[in-house]
């Protein structure tokens, strides 16, 4: 039981962060607006959760310009994918 709980990740306990990771692991990348539409949250809220995931090394960021407008792309890092996979598996174990 303890082993299972160890894989449950605090970072993914939050609904929005869970949503961000779910979307990023099945897509190569998503930009800020795509994430905002999917999750239906405010700019500030989304930005702070993305920052949290970035700080933990689960999400990486690439900034570029499209038609001179800044556009930020978000990627799930290898570490983030691994942690997320473990988190899901722990949930599944827990529900058994």
């Amino acid at each position: 039981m303890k082993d299972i709980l160890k894989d449950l990740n605090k970072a993914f306990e939050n609904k929005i962060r869970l949503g961000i990771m779910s979307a990023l692991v099945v897509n190569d990348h998503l930009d800020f607006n795509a994430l905002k539409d999917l999750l239906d949250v405010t700019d500030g809220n989304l930005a702070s959760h993305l920052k949290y995931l970035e700080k933990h090394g689960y999400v990486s960021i690439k900034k570029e310009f499209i038609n001179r407008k800044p556009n930020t792309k978000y990627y799930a890092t290898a570490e983030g994918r691994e942690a997320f996979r473990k988190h899901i598996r722990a949930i599944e174990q827990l529900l058994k």
Partner: protein
Amino acid sequence: MEKEKYLNDLKEIKDMMSRSSRFISLSGLSGIFVGIIALAGAWAAWQSVYKNLDLNGYGQTLLSNENLTQLLVIAAATLVLSLAFGIYFTTREAKKQHQRIWDQQTRRLLVNLVIPLITGGILCLMLLFDGFAGLMPGLTLIFYGLALVQASQYTLNEIRSLGMLEIVLGLVAVYLVPLGLLFWAIGFGILQIVYGIVIPLKYKS
């Protein structure tokens, strides 16, 4: 309770994964209409050109300029009408489901659909002008099927099986050239109508 929260989390994860990576607002009506247009197109092609053709296996059958023009006009009309109905019904469905019609998912879906289709289209035109009219039904089915299989990663899973069936029908149509148009009508007409009816029923529940 803890358990309930985690069950919810799992549901949320699945939902977000499919919503973020797949275009799910396929319209059944568009399948049905496109199928009917295809049947009409096949009938027109049969009446005007294929009925009088002596299709001998894989060999060249030189079409008269008149026949060639008729065939191209029928093909173009079928294509344009199908696209128009497809786009109309799909946009309507997306609006109903509050899904955006032009975003990363639809772009990916279209790019993957279009690459095999354009390739097949160009190849078919080249062969048609060289007189291989008998191969057209089979080849168009094969490339359409490949496009569907390719695009199915970005939309409903059922599209994959539709694509495989089209490929099989296409191969049979190339093998049995004299019956090619019949298989074309089954693949583009009847199969699409059937899928147009079955898929919405499945997702309604």
